[in-house]
């Protein structure tokens, strides 16, 4: 069943003033459970084809960290596409580009290609959804590749190591605390049989979301989807059940020292709700991050870089797009001659003053909403951003209505909402404060 969801321009116009053109979005569901979303952006004769699976790093069995991501790599080695260069070479030889990514909640595969070749990439993607066949030797070589990837992304970068340690300290129980790429000692022991079992259990049409954006019409997409994905049997996917966090009762501190650090910084992260678990509060947190830390007129910048020249950089962010838990953070990097103690005290001062106040002024609320609105409108200029927004949202269990309500929810946030959520989330006992610095004696 297809339905026209929104020419959402009217909705945005009501909420925020200037209208953004939005592309028509429609959905369908095949009998085997595959959900499809079509975003018609007809500006150029290209299409973005994405398949999101409702499985990610946080769904790995204990002791197998990195499995979801390794499987993502192995999907490019499916025997069905066993030519030199594999899957990607076939896409490339048809003038397309492809890649994939794994997050704690989803694994997604995508191609961008001339829109008249949509059926071709669907055929390839369907073939590796149906089953996966990879040789043992090839799989183990790819495991070496992942170890190199880990070295490149994490071990060769002090900030990467630091982030891994902070996450592990943040989560007392939930698997978001383990690194997506995996711990080195666990990656080194991953077996092909684990990956194939993971594929069989989680990769199937009833555990996937198909997104096609670009110069396409919904009828054609549905017909092609039926042709290529329609006869893949369901796997009997069941909703994910994950462990949850107990109440956090103690502030945690992480000190990571590395001789390569030349710019120390302090980062404090708080456990927070997400867009899926609590959209109103997530929207208020988005605004709180902007009031505190987005741009020169934000509280932290004003206090730490304008009024006193303490910080090289400072800011705040909210990561609220994960399925189960979000994180809210403030950070500051001191100028030479300013210690981490000093900068952390100054950062605390900003938060204390803010929490003791009546909250953001009307002018501040207007500032952050306008800033956010501009980002939203300009995001319409990117086909892949839109495709990801829908695909990721659906794959973590949000409905289309919930995904599309986001701009309205944000614009409805009041100063009182911001204060309420600030007091609820900025609690020391639900926080991790991390410091990244060079060991004493190393030139900073």
């Amino acid at each position, binding site marked *: 069943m297809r339905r026209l969801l929104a020419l959402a321009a009217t909705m945005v116009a009501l909420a925020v003033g200037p209208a953004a053109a939005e592309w028509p979005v429609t959905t369908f569901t095949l009998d085997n459970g595959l959900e499809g979303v079509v975003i018609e952006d007809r500006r150029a004769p290209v299409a973005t084809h994405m398949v999101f699976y409702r499985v990610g790093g946080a769904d790995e069995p204990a002791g197998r960290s990195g499995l979801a991501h390794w499987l993502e790599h192995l999907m490019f080695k499916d025997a069905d596409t066993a030519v030199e260069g594999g899957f990607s070479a076939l896409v490339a030889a*048809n003038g397309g580009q492809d890649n994939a990514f794994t997050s704690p909640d989803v694994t997604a595969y995508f191609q961008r290609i001339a829109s008249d070749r949509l059926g071709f990439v669907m055929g390839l993607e369907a073939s590796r959804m149906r089953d996966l066949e990879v040789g043992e030797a090839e799989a183990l070589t790819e495991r070496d590749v992942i170890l*190199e990837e880990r070295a490149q992304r994490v071990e*060769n970068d002090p900030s990467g190591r630091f982030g891994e340690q902070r996450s592990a300290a943040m989560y007392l129980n939930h698997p978001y605390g383990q690194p997506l790429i995996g711990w080195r000692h666990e990656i080194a022991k991953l077996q092909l049989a684990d990956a194939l079992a993971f594929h069989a259990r989680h990769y199937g049409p009833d555990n996937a979301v198909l997104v096609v954006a670009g110069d396409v019409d919904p009828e054609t997409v549905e017909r092609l989807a039926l042709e290529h994905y329609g006869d893949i049997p369901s796997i009997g996917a069941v909703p994910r059940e994950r462990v949850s966090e107990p109440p956090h009762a103690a502030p945690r501190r992480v000190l990571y020292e590395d001789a390569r*650090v030349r710019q120390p910084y302090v980062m404090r992260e708080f456990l927070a709700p997400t867009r899926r678990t609590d959209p109103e509060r997530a929207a208020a947190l988005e605004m709180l991050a902007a009031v505190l830390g987005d741009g*020169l007129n934000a509280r932290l910048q004003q206090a730490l870089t304008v009024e006193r020249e303490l910080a090289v950089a400072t800011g705040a962010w909210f990561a609220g797009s994960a399925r189960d838990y979000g994180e809210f953070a403030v950070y500051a990097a001191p100028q030479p001659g300013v210690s981490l103690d000093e900068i952390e005290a100054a950062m605390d001062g900003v938060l204390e003053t803010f929490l003791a106040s009546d909250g953001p002024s009307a002018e501040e609320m207007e500032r952050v909403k306008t800033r956010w609105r501009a980002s939203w409108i300009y995001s319409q200029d990117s086909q892949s951003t839109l495709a990801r927004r829908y695909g990721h949202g659906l794959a973590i269990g949000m409905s289309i209505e919930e995904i599309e309500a986001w701009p309205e929810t944000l614009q409805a946030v009041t100063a009182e909402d911001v204060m309420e959520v600030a007091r609820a989330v900025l609690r020391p006992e639900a926080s991790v404060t991390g410091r990244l610095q060079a060991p004493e004696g190393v030139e900073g």
Partner: protein
Amino acid sequence: MNLRMAAAALAFALLPPPPAEAAAEVQAIETPGGIEVWLVEAPEIPMVALELRFGGGASREPAELAGVTRMMAGLLDDGAGDLDAAAFEAAADGLALRFGASAGRDAVSVSARMLTETLDESVELLRLALTEPRFDADAVERARARQISSIRSAGTDPSALASRAWRAALFPEDPYGRPLSGDEATVARIDRAALVAARERALDRGDLAVGIVGDVTPDEAAALIDRLLADLPETRRDPLGPAEFAETRELEIVELDAPQAVARLVQPGIGRDDPDFFAAVVMEHVLGGGGFASRLTQEVRVERGLTYSVSSFLARWDRAAVLGAQVASDNARVAEAIAVIREEWARMRGTGVSEEELDDAKRYLTGAWPLAFDSNAKIASALAGFMSEGLPPDYLVTRNDLVEAVTLEDVNRVAARLLTPERLQVVVVGQPEGLERTDGGAD
């Protein structure tokens, strides 16, 4: 089972090449004020993307003030006219104007995104930023602190160290060999007068390229550009001569205590005006530019698992071009990765590419071309780039014909003439094992 075979059959039966692109239609207009502008009308979204490319980049800054062009570009949105940095940001926020300027070696680029409904006010604010930036003392000190912080961090970042090392090794006497950010000493020296001079050097209509894409008509675009740029001077700059490459290429190891080594292998490349340019583009694609399908990825990553990422690149600036490869690998295995890359360089020079590789590369290159232009902002930026390289306005459409025209003979000729596997400048950052200094070699 049979479905699976059907999928495989489909996979191997390559479809015919896509139809000629009905790509964006580029209009070349000259404003009443005499400025050439390339425009694509795109009324679908109520926004306008603008790209200005001023041909006065960091190569023209004094060596003792290296980094001043970059700092100047970053300060353009930090206060202008009567507005200090905070007031300027508030004004830009109120209009939903997004803009940034960045310094390259040959040019300073300004990219802006504006909403149609606040276009006039946005253009006025942008004009103010380009013509009357304040360079207030407090904003300058913030920018200096950021730049010095990033220079220090780059001092232990393997990729940044590797890039800096190969540039310095290839161009010992040319500004191309200097880091864009300068160093701590040169940045400490930058004062307001130096920033004002850098702005005057860069923001000049003498060598300007303009791309604009969005919800505007040609007349509106012309008026907008004239208002924006009328106050800037138009000076003919003396061209800088071609950059000189170093005579010797020796292995250089930059010691860094890190588990993984990062290597770069570079040699002179090929200019846009060379008749074999597209043959070289195809050759480089097969060698290491084509992602998973490339020879380097196959040999270094897929076959041996020596790396997560290996690729080649063709880089070109106004006065030099470079062909290179990059790889990151365990300290114990990086020597093997470098040896494999060198072998592939030699194999390509000796035997060139196959007919099938040529066809695959052409299909990829022509197919991927329109994919790179799927947003207004990307098209605006590309148009300014084409204009500054002296390409025609319809290059967006005709470029694929130039790729299609490349023959096997062309590719193999350029491979034999261009590639110098025995004379690669190799730099390695880390603690590589089993590499001798003679490895790079001079001939």
